[in-house]
């Protein structure tokens, strides 16, 4: 059997992300759940912000989808991507169902207007979303490596920890029911990187993109954790580079 060209790279990215997955800002929220300091209002903040992020993936994936034909990827890559879009849409529905079922808001329209569900431009959530959207100009393999072998592994890590700590069956179910799909996204990313990333320059781009997406996602998690636990978010300046014509 021929070794897949990107196998070592996929293993490297997965191992790095797994090592970081239980040291995100969400550990403070998990501690609060364990200590009994996590109540209904905190749960609404958590689910509301996750819903806001999840619904923005329609916008992110819309941009990514436009670039799929440009690089002429095999049908399997397109199928896996469409499956991922469907799954993330499911997760958006799960969060909205929970908000309505718990009685935190009477209708979807109300959640759009509520501070917990409103999209705010000047936020770490927006920064993460726009950062992901900007990956529309990169090859699909690069951005899938960044998201599926980066942020999604961090997400799976804190979600597993949170679900284990949550005493409430329904809230726990919102997260545990996502695990299979989230693991599947990691495996999709692994397969795409293993099969399609062969040039050293692409491997370097994958490493850079993965680190960038994880940094942006962690900034969002810090904002989320601070909101849930009533802490003030201290924004760290984002590194910028001057652009000259």
């Amino acid at each position, binding site marked *: 059997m021929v070794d897949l060209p990107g196998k070592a790279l996929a293993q490297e990215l997965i191992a790095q992300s797994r090592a970081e997955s239980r040291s995100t800002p969400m550990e403070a929220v998990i501690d609060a759940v364990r200590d009994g300091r996590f109540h209904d209002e905190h749960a609404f903040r958590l689910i509301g912000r996750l819903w806001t992020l999840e619904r923005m993936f329609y916008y992110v994936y819309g941009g990514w989808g436009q670039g799929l034909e440009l690089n002429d990827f095999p049908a399997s890559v397109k199928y896996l991507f469409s499956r991922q879009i469907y799954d993330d*849409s*499911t997760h958006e*529905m*799960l969060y*909205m*169902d929970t908000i*309505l*079922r718990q009685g935190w808001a009477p*209708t*979807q*329209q109300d959640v759009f207007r509520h501070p917990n569900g409103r999209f705010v431009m000047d936020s770490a959530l927006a920064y993460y979303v726009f950062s992901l959207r900007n990956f529309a100009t990169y090859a699909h393999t690069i951005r899938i490596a960044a998201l599926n072998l980066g942020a999604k592994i961090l997400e799976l890590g804190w979600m597993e920890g949170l679900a284990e700590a949550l005493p409430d069956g*329904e809230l726990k*179910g*919102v997260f545990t*029911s996502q*695990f*299979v*799909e989230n693991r599947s996204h990691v495996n999709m990313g692994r397969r795409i990187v293993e099969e399609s990333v062969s040039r050293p320059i692409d491997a370097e781009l994958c490493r850079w993109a993965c680190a960038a997406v994880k940094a942006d996602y962690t900034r969002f998690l810090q904002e989320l954790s601070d909101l849930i636990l009533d802490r003030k978010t201290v924004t760290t300046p984002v590194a910028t580079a001057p652009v000259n014509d």
Partner: protein
Amino acid sequence: MPTLKIDHDHCTECRMCYVVCRELDINAVYVALEPLHRIEIDARACTYPGCTACLMYCPAEGSIVEVESGRSMVPPPPEAWRRRGSALPV
């Protein structure tokens, strides 16, 4: 009052029923909290036979069933069209 349920042997999980139910703010169609994430109908929230919007958009014959009679409501029978919209929120 008669109630509706999803027949998972026929449903394609396209989720049009979910979308229209949510848009009408009835919110009776939901995603089940299990790994398959199948679509279900909450009979307590569903306003059938007043609202039949999900039946109008469902593309898969036999996938929404009237529980009491056991008959398929997709494609919707003529009386479902006549009742259409009578219990929608204003």
